[in-house]
């Protein structure tokens, strides 16, 4: 399947939306620590999506510079050097493709993030 077509597909929007919600759920469950039983369901959902080839990548804490095109970033603060992702509005979603070239991933949703200079903190 052509990844460009997949990504551009309107049909994919609900799936991407579900994956974003799953990411949010995961984030909240992790934050609320005590809900371990809930975390298992989230993990299973993530595993199920992974089986289908969809991988959620959390860019929180990753470095950002102008060569990264997997993120749509808003820069907070005044400095634009030594940037790091401090807020994730949408995670990066990759599709695992298996074909004659082997197994590789393609980005089907870029992460939407806020980045800040480490020097701001």
């Amino acid at each position: 399947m052509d990844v460009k077509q997949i990504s551009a597909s309107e049909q994919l929007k609900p799936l991407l939306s579900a994956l974003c919600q799953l990411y949010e759920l995961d984030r909240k469950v992790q934050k609320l620590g005590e809900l371990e039983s809930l975390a298992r369901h989230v993990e299973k959902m993530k595993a199920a999506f992974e089986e289908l080839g969809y991988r959620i990548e959390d860019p929180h804490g990753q470095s950002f510079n102008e060569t990264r095109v997997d993120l749509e970033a808003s820069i907070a603060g005044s400095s634009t050097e030594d940037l790091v992702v401090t807020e994730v509005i949408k995670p990066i979603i990759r599709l695992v493709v298996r074909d004659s070239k082997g197994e590789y991933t393609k980005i089907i949703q870029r992460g939407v993030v806020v980045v800040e200079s480490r020097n701001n903190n």
Partner: protein
Amino acid sequence: MSKTINFGIDLGTTNSLIAKFNKGTVEVYKNPVGFKETLPSVVAFRNDRILVGERGRAYLEKDPKSTVGQFKRKMGTTESFKIKSLDQSKTPIELSALVLKELKTFIHTGEIPEAVVITIPASFDMVQSNATKEAGLQAGFKQVVLLQEPIAASLAYANKTTGNELNNSQWIVYDLGGGTFDVALVRISEGELKVIDHEGDNFLGGADFDALIVERIVVPAIAKKGQFADLLDQLKSRSGRLNSKWYALLAAAEEAKMELSTKSSTEIDVELEDDDGETISMLLNVTRSDFEAVIKDAVDATAEMLRTILTRNSLQPSDLKFVLMVGGSTYIPLVRTRINELLGIPVNTDIDPTNAIVIGSAYYAGNKPLELEPMKSNAESPSHGLLKLKVSYNKASQEVEEMFSVKVDGDVNGLAYRILREDGGYDSGLKQLTSRISEDLPLLPDAYNSFTLKILDQHNDPIAVESIQIAQGKYSVAGQMLPEDLSLVKDDLQDGDTKLVQVFARNTILPAKKKATVDVSKTLVHGTDDEIRIMVVEGSSSNHFSSNKFVGVLLVSAKNLKRDLLKGTEIDLTFEVSESRDVTIHAYVNPSGPEFSDVFSPKDRRVDVKSLAEEIGMLEEKIEQELAEAVNNENYEVANVLEKLSVPVQELQGEAVLLTLDDVTDHKYKLEDRKRKIAQELHQATSTKRIDGLRSEYIEARDEVSELVKESGNDIEKRQLQEIINHEHVFLTTSSTQRLADHVSKLRSLQFQILTRSPDFLIGWFKNLTAKRETFNDQIQAKNLIEAGKQHIDGEDFDRLLEVNRRLFSLLPEQEQESKDMRHFTGIS
């Protein structure tokens, strides 16, 4: 027929798009990075890179001395933009040319257009128009035709709808985009389309609406919930404590705005710390009327501009055919209703407002003949002859970045290069080519990273392409890859045997982790000695498990359970293999709760004496079965091999029973090795038979199902069958019995699915089930069901007959077969 231009570009103040006319239809191209149709008209110059589009926009506000946007407003002026990082100035023409060149990269067919139609605002004068044309020539187009934006939008409408008589009429094109607003009066007179008048506001658009939502709805709500001295300042000020939240809230507001175009209310999720360090967490409900209240003044202002045009041209609203809505912000219902309400002119929303202009330009281009006469251009076109590239880099790396360098022989003057990673996560941006270039390429972990280096001429057209492959975390250190498959042993209830399910394939990069869910295939009564075995073996997953090397078994013992574990319960398994090949199995038994986990390392190889004895028993039984079959089929060659195997297996059996359960010597390992070797020989001797058997079974099933699908299959079933047949050349030549068996099973399921729609089949099935009436578990229920089934047959209610059959089937006792122990060897399936 003469050739036509075909390519159209909407070179917008905020965003730009490119499209192509092809045989009556228009394709709007998408950015290969991020797949959006729109490219923000922003250029950033950072660290000797040129970044066009969204990455440039990220730096617009925070690095304004090296980033330029909205340069379209300065087209045709003598003004230029000083770029701090370059220490030189760039003209609006040069910046526009960069945007146009970037748009060329959207064309996925690799076609290099020589001519293009570029749209311009109705307000552009001669100088501004010529400046736009020059930008097109600098971008490498040999012919540039200009088209006014309102005309383009009108053409998009005219081409979309049929039977609309536009001749000798006039209308308004209302264009409210992300950052600018334009309104134009368009008239068609004697077949000629003309812009009569126009108005606009360069600082009004959707982005302003997002900010209004945050400022007037979200911020007051947050302020009520916590302690804030100056919340809005803290958010908006670049040195403010909450500046990062401002962008997060703007993004949430934009999403809410889009949702409110179709829904009457939405929610914004807010989480931030107040001045006292308390976390404010709230889900703010925003209704469409809240949103409309904050943007109403701005929308009314646009109506006012429209009214000005009417007054200036002595027109009444009734003189206009409609107001044609263009620009993403015209999706907002208030914009549509308010314009209609205030001016009484019908609003036309027939075209996609986000790409109408580029679509109109492509339609125009589709009818505009290509006239490639030499045109004057300031751009030089040097000849670069043959470039020789000598690339050097490590093809395997353990680093997160790898240095890539190229030595270039030849004339590099005026050339640029660009490196892209194929997953769409890295773009070096446009950089000037020199005789030696080097770049730190970021690598995705544990993956083959494919990059493309393109050498581009001054028009952004590629003149050389080099592909770069770097394996991260792949080779380099010995022992990083798994040498054999690791598989989980499961019961194969159908065949009364075990089967292997591959967990990690051979050559998987370590460390690796995988999850799986299995079903408990027998009920475990708590407190008893019963157990389930989560067994992992190493070796080819297409072989039988007994020929694989035993890695470890995690025992889920009934003694540790608080209550019975019912058949069918799911167990969540996690398998981890460390770099040093320790295998960790973790089992979570739901709903009883207990968790079991164990680590198995190669240096601490465990052999479970009880399992070993059982496995040897199973092996002996199997050899006897196969031997009898081979003799029966007069396959003496195989029989001979098998006969030779029965002696050592019997010896093994004798030695295994002598082992104590807690044997501490290495004798059990030796026995296990011997067992494995015998199993491998057995597998080898009988593999041809199994594969041949399965192949015939597959072919028989395929022919039967093909016939059935042809007669009674629906489209989906036809597709499913075709998909299996399309791949048969792969699995028919495989040595994996599992894959063949899976496909036979798929075919049989498909067959059953179709047959359940056939009354004859359902009646036959029903009769077959009623013949077994004595064996049903619940005789009363079975009797009632049989009665109901008969009635459904008489009444020809076959849906309900199917339901009866299913329920009767579930009342049948489990098929107890001879090799019961073998069927529940692991207790999972």
